[in-house]
């Protein structure tokens, strides 16, 4: 199986975040890491390769610093990497990110493309789905189990409230992977050393620019929610207090 993993570099989960001057995003003087669901997607890709043979390529779009997530993927066992390298890739909307990735892999014919179900920073959960649309292949989201069959794929999707859906699908396909589908491996010393020798293809902005269009999504303003604590204390005997609470919830809060 020829597998592609789409990986995003996101701010570290516990990094103290500060807004930028314009108030449109955070300041980027933070530490970065691999988007967690993408790390699970990579692990799943490596496991599929170990079972069925083939190769795993990793791709990311972002500035030079984003190369780190590809290096990690190579150290864990990916065979090669593709880096859409430009500062402008960092602030694209999901549709354009998908277009850029599609353009970068034109002619590659991957059997399977996996990515995390959403990013830890924007959390849009769109890039994988849009990529499938652009490539004209089927997709499935929130995957927690993958089994390759002769006909294609048997998949397990996580629904709400402890329900699951089992579906079958042909390949090629795009899957968005849920965190926790597997147990992540560690990069090894030897893996880190070998990663340096593996191929990394750079794709410039100019190479894909023609395939992009206007951003349809943009963050206008980001702000820290102000405290809106409104506490009201009801002092009355229990029965009377309960009535007043119900009254309040019905008429003022309109919660019931």
């Amino acid at each position, binding site marked *: 199986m020829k597998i592609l993993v789409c990986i995003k570099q996101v701010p570290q989960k516990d*990094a*103290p975040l*500060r807004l930028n001057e314009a108030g449109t995003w955070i300041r980027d*003087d933070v530490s970065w890491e691999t988007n967690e669901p993408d790390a699970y997607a990579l692990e799943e890709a490596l496991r599929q390769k170990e079972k069925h043979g083939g190769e795993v390529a990793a791709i990311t779009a972002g500035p030079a610093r984003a190369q780190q997530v590809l290096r990690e993927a190579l150290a864990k066992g990916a065979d090669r990497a593709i880096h859409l390298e430009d500062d402008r890739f960092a602030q694209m909307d999901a549709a354009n990110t998908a277009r850029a990735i599609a353009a970068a892999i034109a002619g590659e014919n991957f059997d399977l493309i996996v990515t995390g179900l959403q990013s830890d920073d924007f959390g849009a959960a769109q890039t994988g789905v849009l990529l499938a649309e652009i490539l004209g292949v089927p997709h499935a989201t929130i995957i927690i189990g993958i089994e390759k069959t002769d006909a294609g794929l048997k998949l397990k999707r996580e629904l709400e409230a402890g329900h699951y859906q089992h579906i079958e699908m042909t390949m090629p396909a795009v899957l968005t992977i849920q965190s926790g589908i597997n*147990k992540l*491996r560690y990069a*090894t*010393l030897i893996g*880190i050393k070998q990663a340096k020798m593996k191929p990394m293809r750079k794709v410039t902005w100019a190479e894909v620019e023609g395939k992009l269009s206007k951003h349809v999504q943009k963050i206008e303003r980001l702000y820290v929610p102000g405290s809106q604590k409104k506490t009201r204390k009801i002092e009355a005997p229990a029965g009377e207090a309960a009535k007043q609470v119900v009254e309040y919830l019905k008429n003022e809060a309109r919660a019931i």
Partner: protein
Amino acid sequence: MEADVVIVGGGPAGMACALRLAQLIDAHNASGVDELLSKENICVLEKSREVGQHCLSGGLLDPRSMRELLPGFEKEAPLDAEVTKESVWFLTRSGRYKAPIVPPPLRDHGNYVISLNKFVKWMGQKVEQAGITVFTGFAGSELLWANESKDVETARVLGVQTDDKGVDKEGRPKGNFEPGYELRAKVTILAEGTRGSLAKELISKLGLEDLEHAQTYGVGIKELWEIPAGRVAKGEVIYTLGYPLTSREYGGAWVYGISDTLVSVGYVTGLDYQDPRTDPHHVFQSFKEHKLARRILEGGKMIRYGAKSLPYGGWLTMPRIYGNGWMLLGDSASFLNSQRLKGIHLAIKSGMLAAEAAFDALVSGDSSADRLREYKAAVDASWIREELWPVRNFHQGFEHGLLGGMVRAGIQQVRRGGNLGPDAKNGAGYTRMERVDELGPALAKRAPMVGNAKGDGKLTFDRLTDVFHSGTRHDEDQPVHLVVEDLSICSSRCTKEYGNPCQYFCPAAVYEMVEQPQRADTPRAEGAGTDGGSDGSTKELRINFTNCVHCKTCDIMDPYQIITWVPPEGGGGPNYDGM
């Protein structure tokens, strides 16, 4: 795995060592010799997830050694400001007195305010560009020895064992278990920083510490603040002595102007205090309430927090720094000038000199102590000794209080480092801790420094708020990395004798004595030990190891010396971005 040189610790010392080694190898290979050396077999192990994340310093760099390592480094290194203005203050509870002149050792013109985190990140890039791999997320967990010898002349270090990954809290392998490597090396260089865990193993096994000149330490607590412009100039340096410490403790504060709106502020408390209730984090919080600090910080915003211990002892407490197959660098080996409050430049220089010895060992095929002795000789012949020898008695002079210390420092200044008598001797700092029932008078004066700070949430903070700002994290399902040899001592002897000082000296709220409901079905907390108190109540030690910021204070200051800090799974720990 086999390597030529393994450097444990990717801080300024380790990175400088790697970089110098790469330079020497490049020059060697370019000189037309037959036997080429490879940089492939040199590796730097760093326990943090990314280079520089565990590096913490007040943030002043004396550029001397960097100019030797990379001439013209100022043009490309991340330097925040050149020092333009200094002042030294003595604080009382409500007053402040400016020193009429800045004492020569604290004159910082020509030095730079830096973020050590950013600076080491940059050094790491240089090392990678030079062709040496930095393995982040890997700690050295044990030394590999050639034999059982405990004699420094015959014992030989063969390399290091890296940490096992994927071990659960009971010590069992998880599904993704990855055993550590036996990383064998011709030369093993320990550059782990203050109280390095492998350095500690080495020093104690080979008996390298001189008991009459035991290493002494301080712990520095630091915050980064964004403040309104106009309060501290970019490149301004302020030092204070005194409040909230009394004349019996050693320590002081710094304020460094990084930009017009960003300051590094912190307080170092000597880890040789007497009152076991002393809380270095509280000391720092109280300092911020003093009007000198309040005027700078009020209305600003704290954005980062960190804590790290530093070696104060200087030249006299330096252990032997070389042996068969090993060398010690930087803070692991006491390369710090406590009079000038600076160590980065010495760490870098020690790394460079060790690299030269390691290079000669590789060329000659001899990495025995006889060959590596060259490192010690080079240190003795370098400006490191010139700088450290005259101040060898400085910290020791303060052992019996601030006033005497100032007098002695003055005498030493005149006598080129000598006392009016022989060089000072000193024992380990923890031995000076007094028992709770023996605490002397003047307890009221100590209120601002004992017990945990509560914090107002604006200017001052409790420890958990601060720890959050250190960005520290550890996988919860791993063995507790603060190994307490005998937990029964905590809940019995220590409670009575010292009142469990671990609750106070830890700046990350790792140690907590918790009241235990006496139920048989109570699940055991992580790393818990228990004992019934005589009054029927049961308090047991809970070790919240995931809060740990790797400062090593517990390993240093615990009065029974039963806490051993071992590296947690590689990749865990604080994130000192921008610190």
